[in-house]
């Protein structure tokens, strides 16, 4: 039998040279070195997958983690860490910060800073710095995995769940690999495990029905890895991904248009969503409302020409852009897993895996969580927490289930929006308009005064139960550092905070957050909700 130390570089199972006790099939020749049972195999090395597997390893379980990134249509790919680290939260927040700093530089002059000459932004400098940070996170994860005696498999192509057998699920990984001679080789590696966890997340959707969309457009998978500025950009979509991207692109000085079919930030409180987009419009982002893209063509000059239908007039419009960014939704990564063969049930519409409260799927010993789970929030912190609890339950350490309620979030648009609990619409729908009381206030951050910045959209809304203890049902805040402001209040919310609790809390002065403790004008009263000076 061949020495696996030599053949292993071919199958790219780096980190596994010393003991490759797995069955390898190569062109029908079996190199059998022995069987290996894992306690846990986690498919997906993102926020959820890594948290789950690291927790399991710390509890003494034998864990294998598999991660694979199908390159985007444009060819972008990245290292371990999943969406959040590589093409989501992390690069997004850093680029958002770059944009905020641009605004801060403008404000700085009013505060006395002598800034000679006009300020300009260099995309390449920002992109390189952001990409380097992401790479350091990739490396950090790799070192951690290696450290914990993981077996980390970097799959080049597809993972196919082939058979299910009693207490052991057998995963068949098939990967065509191009080796030196450019001959495709097919490797099959079989891992056996007591439990399997699927945490493969999702990827951005392309509107494939629009001619030119796939060939000429990019998605959030690509924007953070561009080496050169995207230039004049059309962002299609009204999700937080679309608005956040359009927000920082505008902030760094690029001419940006957002194309919205119907409403912004579907699922979020619509009054707050309106404030977010009003601010963006006031700060230079163009919005093309009620517009549906029809086609994308590349002109001889290299620019992209987009034709769209203005749904209000019914007429077609046309304009040119350097880049078109599709932010029209995300699709779950289940297609290449061959789940039907094993019997894991999916939601027909969304394609996501149907999961129970304990993250179990329709097949015993196979679990799924994170973005891939039907009905789950598409957020990193919930995936991380759910993953850790799942690992603990599988190791027999706890029975605690993940609590998906009361999860606070923040949209990092130029004017940030943080919230926890129900939107006003949702509260009305659940409790009835007469059974809720909405307290609100328009406030002005102190820092905006000297900077002569418009604060028209800085707003707070506390939705409470009417009468009784006036329990807080939802809390909404637009303003600077919304994430930092909301986090603390989220704990109060988790503890069942009431309006009385809020009013009994003494504010920290001078801050924006203190305005939450001072709300006293209800919408029902019709009184002016603008906060006056202190």
């Amino acid at each position: 039998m061949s020495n696996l130390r030599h053949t292993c570089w071919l199958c790219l199972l780096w980190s596994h040279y010393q003991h490759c006790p797995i069955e390898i099939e190569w062109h029908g020749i079996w190199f059998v070195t022995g069987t290996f049972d894992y306690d846990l195999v986690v498919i997906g090395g993102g926020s959820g997958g890594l948290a789950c597997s690291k927790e399991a390893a710390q509890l003494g379980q034998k864990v294998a983690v598999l991660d694979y990134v199908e390159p985007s249509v444009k060819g972008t790919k990245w290292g371990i860490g999943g969406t959040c680290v590589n093409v989501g939260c992390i690069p997004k927040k850093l680029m958002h910060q770059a944009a905020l700093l641009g605004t801060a530089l403008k404000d700085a002059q009013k505060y006395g800073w002598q800034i000679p000459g006009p300020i300009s932004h260099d995309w390449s400098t920002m992109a390189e710095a952001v990409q380097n940070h992401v790479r350091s996170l990739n490396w950090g994860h790799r070192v951690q995995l290696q450290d914990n005696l993981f077996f980390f498999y970097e799959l080049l192509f597809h993972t196919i769940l082939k058979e299910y057998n009693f207490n052991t699920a057998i995963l068949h990984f098939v990967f065509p690999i191009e080796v030196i001679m450019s001959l495709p080789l097919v490797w099959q590696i079989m891992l056996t495990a007591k439990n399997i966890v699927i945490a493969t997340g999702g990827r951005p959707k392309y509107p494939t029905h629009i001619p030119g969309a796939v060939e000429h457009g990019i998605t959030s998978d690509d924007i953070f890895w561009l080496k050169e500025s995207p230039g004049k950009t059309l962002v299609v979509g009204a999700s937080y991904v679309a608005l956040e991207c359009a927000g920082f692109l505008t902030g760094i000085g690029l001419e940006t248009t957002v194309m919205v079919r119907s409403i912004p930030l579907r699922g979020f409180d619509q009054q707050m969503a309106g404030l977010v987009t009003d601010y963006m419009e006031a700060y230079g982002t163009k919005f093309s409302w009620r517009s549906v893209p029809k086609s994308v063509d590349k002109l001889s000059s290299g620019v992209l020409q987009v034709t769209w239908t203005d749904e209000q007039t019914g007429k077609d419009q046309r304009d040119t852009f350097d880049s078109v960014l599709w932010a029209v939704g995300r699709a779950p990564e289940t297609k290449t897993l061959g789940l039907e063969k094993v019997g894991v049930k999916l939601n027909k519409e969304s394609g996501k895996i149907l999961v129970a409260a304990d993250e179990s799927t329709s097949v015993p010993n196979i679990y799924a969580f994170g973005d891939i789970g039907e009905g789950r929030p598409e957020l990193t912190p919930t995936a991380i927490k759910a993953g850790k609890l799942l690992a603990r339950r599988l190791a027999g350490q706890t029975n605690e289930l993940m609590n998906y309620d009361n999860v606070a979030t923040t949209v990092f648009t130029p004017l940030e929006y943080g919230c926890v609990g129900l939107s006003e619409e949702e509260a009305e729908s659940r409790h009835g308009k007469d059974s809720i009381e909405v307290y609100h206030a328009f406030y002005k951050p102190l820092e905006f005064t000297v900077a002569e910045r418009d604060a028209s959209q800085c707003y707070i809304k506390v939705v409470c139960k009417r009468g009784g203890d006036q329990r807080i049902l939802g809390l909404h805040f637009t303003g600077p550092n919304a994430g930092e402001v909301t986090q603390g209040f989220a704990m109060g919310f988790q503890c069942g905070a009431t309006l009385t609790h809020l009013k009994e809390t003494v504010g920290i002065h001078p801050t924006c957050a203190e305005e939450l403790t001072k709300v006293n004008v209800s919408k029902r009263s019709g009184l002016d909700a603008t906060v006056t000076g202190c």
Partner: protein
Amino acid sequence: MSHYEEVKVHGYDEFCKAVSERKGNDIFAYFSGDIDTQGLSWCPDCVKAEPIVRGEMSHLPEGSVFFYCQVGERPYWKDPNNEFKKTLKLSGVPTLIRYGTPQKLVEEECFKADLVRMMFTED
């Protein structure tokens, strides 16, 4: 004849000069406390890590350069303002880095042959 080049340097200036002469190469650098006449460093972790790092050097990529850099004597190293700490942002010795990338292994991480090999073979 090995497939990589080993360059021994001593001190920050010598290190920087030697690196600038080899731009365009895949550069790895191992920073260690100074070696005495017996071949032992004042840094016990460096003494422990060196054979482990050397044991993995056969995995270095073709055409790469491996710098063995002695940083200086113990008092120099302990000074928080020394150039290695200030400019190269080293936090401890031994440190193994892949120059120009975020890949680095610090102190006890250098004791793990797996991690060293991972850095040498990473794409």
